[in-house]
């Protein structure tokens, strides 16, 4: 059986996962490498279509620049900082910068 060309290498998956800020384990990398290549191979079916002069449809409605009046409205009444997992007083606690 001819080994088909890999659409995405393990190194690429690691670098993409880092871009997406998802730490992945060695086991996940092995699993994803196989699965993502299968999926991308299936996606390559769209290469058959000639789309040279076709405009993209980013969404299906004709709405353009929907704006509302710049008016002050009441904000949420609750102290929403309290839904953060780590807080100090009224503040959300963030990790240190690198």
């Amino acid at each position: 059986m001819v080994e088909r060309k890999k659409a995405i290498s393990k190194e690429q998956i690691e670098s993409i996962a880092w871009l997406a800020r998802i730490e992945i384990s060695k086991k996940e990398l092995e699993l994803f490498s196989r699965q993502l290549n299968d999926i991308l191979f299936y996606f390559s079916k769209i290469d058959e279509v000639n789309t040279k002069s076709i405009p993209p449809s980013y969404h299906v409605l004709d709405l353009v620049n929907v704006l509302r009046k710049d008016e002050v409205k009441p904000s949420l009444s609750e102290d929403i900082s309290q839904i953060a997992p780590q807080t100090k007083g009224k503040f959300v606690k963030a990790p240190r910068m690198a």
Partner: protein
Amino acid sequence: MPSYIKLPAYEIIKRIKAQELMAEDYIASLYERIKKVEKDIRAYITLTEDLALKKAREIDKKVKKREKTGRLCGVGIAIKDNICTRGIRTTCASHMLENFVPPYDATVISRIKDEDGVIMGKANMDEFAMGSSTEFSYFGPTHNPWDLERVPGGSSGGSAAAVASGMATLALGSDTGGSIRCPASFCSVVGLKPTYGLVSRFGLIAYANSLEQIGPITKDVRDCALLLSCIASHDPLDNTSVDRPQEDYTKYLIDDIDGMKLGVVKEFFGEGTQDYVEKGVLEAVTNLEELGTDHQEISLKNLQYALPSYYIIAMSEASSNLARYDGLRYGYRIPNKSYDWSTVYSKDRRFGFGFEVKRRIILGTFALSAGYYEEYYLKAQKIRTLIKRDFDIAFKKFDVLIGPTMPILPFKIGEKVQDPLEMYMCDVDSVPANLAGIPSISIPCGFSKGLPIGLQIMAPPFREDLLLRVAFSFQKNFPVSAKLRSYE
């Protein structure tokens, strides 16, 4: 068991308004039902019994005092757990949002409250609505009420299973690539994905914005029209909400489709479609012909590219939407405090998200990255244009298009969960409607080997009236009857 658990919403509402039935007794009986069957079906992530009974008592008081009551007067509704409910935790079936309690209501929830609907609880789903079987839930799978060893479909599997098993009278789901219609088909209930822009998405936890809509999952077509009438209206809080006059969709429940033209979509009977399903759907086509419709086969050539295009677009949008889960402002945060920002962020997401969500975010990030953007994302959006054009042409010739909702019967739990691509293939007939933004309904059309088959009907944008009319006529003249064992 009181017989009104089996009744559709409009019957319940009529009885409550006429003071023949106390909302409190009826809601209590739904929870009795939940106590009996939920351990086998697992349709809910969170139950809100105390709140629901309190609301029911308020409604009983209003009725007694002859005050004005809403159109959903006292009826029990299950809400998919990706729709924000103020003060009730909304998990998206994810570890990431396991303890998230929204400080606001989604617009559809405000509408339901205004209409005196009673929220029963939050329904199980695939994590972040990514899946077709409800197996990708952090809280474990929901079981199909028709066969507990099988999946209820997904991603709104909990909503559909709750309605099918009498644990809710109505439900809300969301549909990004079939997530309302697939479980409706697998559980033998009615599910409608509205036209993109008809129902507000404000407060729906985003997966793929340009594709998804909230919609009703109900026991029959009349209930579907009723719930749609309550939730469909313009919302300034959603910039993609279309400003149209509000409609009462129940007026389209007309048992007359004489002379209507139906297009039977050839691509929906392709490779991978089970014979049982094909047979069931073609029988329904013959039934519709008996009601005076004309049908012809039609081929929409670009539909063969719908599935890969859909997944590329949905994953790309997901990678962008789910970037907000940093574990800082809300959501899952690792306990260790010594790491730097990026490490915390990437560990929160490693442990907060399940496999399927991570797969989609990584693939979406890849499809949007420099060097691949044109090959994947842009190309898929161009094919979306071609698919939309195919539908435009088809609707010049036909009033509605029909086919199966799902190419296969409900499958066994665990059967496809190891193979993501095989799971994606289940969505082949449902994703075209999302790509084109058109409305689509799934209604029960029969059983094969004791398992439900769903008929899918699609119409041009904002022609929900046509869907409801065809669906209503079909259901009225050819009701699908089967006994749910766990009912008796």
